[in-house]
């Protein structure tokens, strides 16, 4: 079920009302049923995969907890192999096969790989990573194994974050699912506000930008020079608004139910270095890689060369996490270069913050081209076009809809800037009339300018 749908508009209030009418110790059952229904709304049979992951990881963690040494490690490997195996079959099998075939062909060998005709279950990368985070925490002794299978199932299936995160940690989510807090009006207000902001970002900003971005990138052979620069900038904002909108609605929905999910975005485009950007963008995934890959490899408390190797591994995996496609790998490696380069080439002269922010945004935007382009060769040709700076399609910018989009980006960025400078409280301290006027204005703009097609959230594909 998509957050931006009539189905969710009916589903969520029913879930909330029944949730708070039930005694706290029975709420997990209701939320679990609701979460199954939410997921089954996409493709019901893929629920079986989730049930399998849940049963496997719950069992591995229970068996692992009292053991030490080799047996404990073997059980961890069993859990990781289960999760990564599923991910590999559904997401990477065809990719690696195709690449192997290409490699074999280069060596003069005749290798025709079998192709698995499988559709990637929505959000598989998200819930397998969340499940792995649980078994890793249990393995390291930082989290006790969950005794209650139902509550553990809810940890993996909890509907607001099931499909596109945030990728939660057991220490944050499991205790909340056990206590099931009572209804708190202030939390509900904050949750509704987050949902409104999320819907606004999705239908007014992201999906409107998608019209121009899709036109430019899907018809990339017909797009030229400067038009691509605008398309790339628009995509940078589109993906931010799209993904952060999902997170806002997820966090808002959970907040109303009394559950606090982690923050996933912290105004990433105001970062003044690529490294800072990655502490503000998709925080739940960045910290996952930090905690479970980067730090175990030695992190930055090792020689510079090893730190660079660790960063390389993290960004390579991050690229692969996003998709079984060479463009995602290149996207990850490009970000690795942006993050690692300052370790060797730290500027001797301090650049003004605005310039560093601008350069960071530009670098990230160029990397996004690999993320959005249909394939690697298309990305290469798009970059060539961008370097050529041809102006013959500047007439596209005379489009009134695009001008509205750009104005909305400027307005939203200004709001975020005020938010960053003064904190959220500046808005919350404002008179209630002003706040309500802003809410009504947002609702009117959503109705008047929103795009309500069937466009899914971009991160659903992962």
């Amino acid at each position, binding site marked *: 079920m998509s957050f931006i749908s009539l189905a969710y508009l*009916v589903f969520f209030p029913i879930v909330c009302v029944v949730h708070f009418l039930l005694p706290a110790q029975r709420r997990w059952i209701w939320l679990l049923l609701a979460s199954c229904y939410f997921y089954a709304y996409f493709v019901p049979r893929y629920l079986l995969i989730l049930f399998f992951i849940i049963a496997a990881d719950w069992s591995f963690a229970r068996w692992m907890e009292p053991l030490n040494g080799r047996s404990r490690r073997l059980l961890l490997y069993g859990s990781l192999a289960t999760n990564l195996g599923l991910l590999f079959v559904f997401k990477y099998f065809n990719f690696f096969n195709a690449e192997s075939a290409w490699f074999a062909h280069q060596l003069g060998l005749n290798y025709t790989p079998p192709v698995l005709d499988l559709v990637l279950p929505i959000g598989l990368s998200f819930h397998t990573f969340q499940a792995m985070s649980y078994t890793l925490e249990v393995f390291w002794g930082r989290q006790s194994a969950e005794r209650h299978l139902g509550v553990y199932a809810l940890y993996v299936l909890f509907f607001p974050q099931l499909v596109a995160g945030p990728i939660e940690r057991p220490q944050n989510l499991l205790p909340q699912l056990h206590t099931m807090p009572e209804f708190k*009006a202030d939390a*509900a*207000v904050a949750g509704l506000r987050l949902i409104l902001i999320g819907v606004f970002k999705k239908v007014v900003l992201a999906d409107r930008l998608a019209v121009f971005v899709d036109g430019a990138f899907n018809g990339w052979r017909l797009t030229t020079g400067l038009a691509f620069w605008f398309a790339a900038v628009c995509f940078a904002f589109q993906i931010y608004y799209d993904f952060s909108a999902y997170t806002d609605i997820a966090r808002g929905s959970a907040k109303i139910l009394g559950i606090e999910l982690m923050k996933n975005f912290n105004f990433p485009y105001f970062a003044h270095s690529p490294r800072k950007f990655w502490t503000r963008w998709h925080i739940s995934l960045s910290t996952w890689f930090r905690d479970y890959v980067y730090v175990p490899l030695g992190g930055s408390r090792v020689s510079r060369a090893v730190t660079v190797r660790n960063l390389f591994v993290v960004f390579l995996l991050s690229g692969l996490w996003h998709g079984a496609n060479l463009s995602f790998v290149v996207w990850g490696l490009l970000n690795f270069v942006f993050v690692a380069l300052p370790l060797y080439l730290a500027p001797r002269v301090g650049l003004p913050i605005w310039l560093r922010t601008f350069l960071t945004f530009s670098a990230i935007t160029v990397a996004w081209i690999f993320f959005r382009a249909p394939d690697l060769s298309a990305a290469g040709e798009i970059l060539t076009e961008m370097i050529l700076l041809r102006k013959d399609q500047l007439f596209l910018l005379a489009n009134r809809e695009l001008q509205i989009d750009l104005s909305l980006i400027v307005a939203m960025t200004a709001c975020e800037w005020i938010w960053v400078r003064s904190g959220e409280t500046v808005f919350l301290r404002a008179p209630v009339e002003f706040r309500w006027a802003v809410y*009504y204005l947002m609702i009117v703009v*959503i*109705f008047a300018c929103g*795009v309500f097609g069937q466009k899914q959230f971009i991160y659903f594909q992962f």
Partner: protein
Amino acid sequence: MATGRFIFKLLIFSLPLSAGFLWLECRMRTAPNSYQFKQALIEKYGAGAEVLIFGTSHAYYDFNPAKFTVPGLNLANTSQSLVLDQQIYTQNVALFAKVRVLVLNLSYFSFEYRLYGNSDDYREFSYIHAFGIEGDGGWRSKLDPRRFSSVLAFGPEMIRKILFNGFGSGLAREISQQGWMNSSIGKYPHLPVSKEAGRDRAQYHSATLDPSLAESNLEAIAKIVEVAEANGAKVVLSQAPASIYYTQALDPEAERRFHIYIDKLQRTLGLEFHDYLRDKRFAITDFYDNDHLNAEAAGRFSTIFDREVLAPILSPAEN
């Protein structure tokens, strides 16, 4: 904040929004649309009609009953499934006292299609509201909130268009008094007739195919035949012309199944089938878009249909 105060504030906040919603709901319910228009036509002219046309937009655009030698009514509409045809007909059969021929124009996808669940299924609720019928979505449609609200059924983008149009409508100009869609005076621009657009259109229609729906659609036809025969009318099947760009992009396997269904209907119900899909008398320039004739060609096709199909049934002695 206490829960009671929260609920009170939420209600106050929702008041203007609810008022706006109710106002829109009232306006949308009364805003003219082609479904209400057709129901009004049934009530006004149904009693005098001798020929009825049912089907999807292909029938809606291509059959101009004004060109028939007897009074006729075109009750087809965009995306109208066979189940909806059957419901509209049986619901209003008492009003069709003089009907002698009922033409069921079949589109390539008709047998394996239903409106509910497709991208334009908001129309389903217009059928339900305007004709007072069940719809073709079964229990899912019955539980769908859109069934109870025109605002929810149309959705924000459609409402925006209608709102900015002042809830007005050019229906009186676009739809003739016989229910035919006159594409020459429509508010929509002429759509491209090209290989790419024809392929896209055929693929769009192929994507709606669901073989599991064939049984219910064949049952709907059987029901129409049963009711029509009981009321002295003959049912005829047809397929209207489409451009070569559209027909060459149709899925051959789906077309093969289409003809199996036709054979079955001919065998079991003894129905005539008149296939004009690839009729050479219609060239590329005769099309409004890839699968609908333009107004002039529709007139020509209707005359041909009247001469070749209707006349032998209505006046067998003269033929």
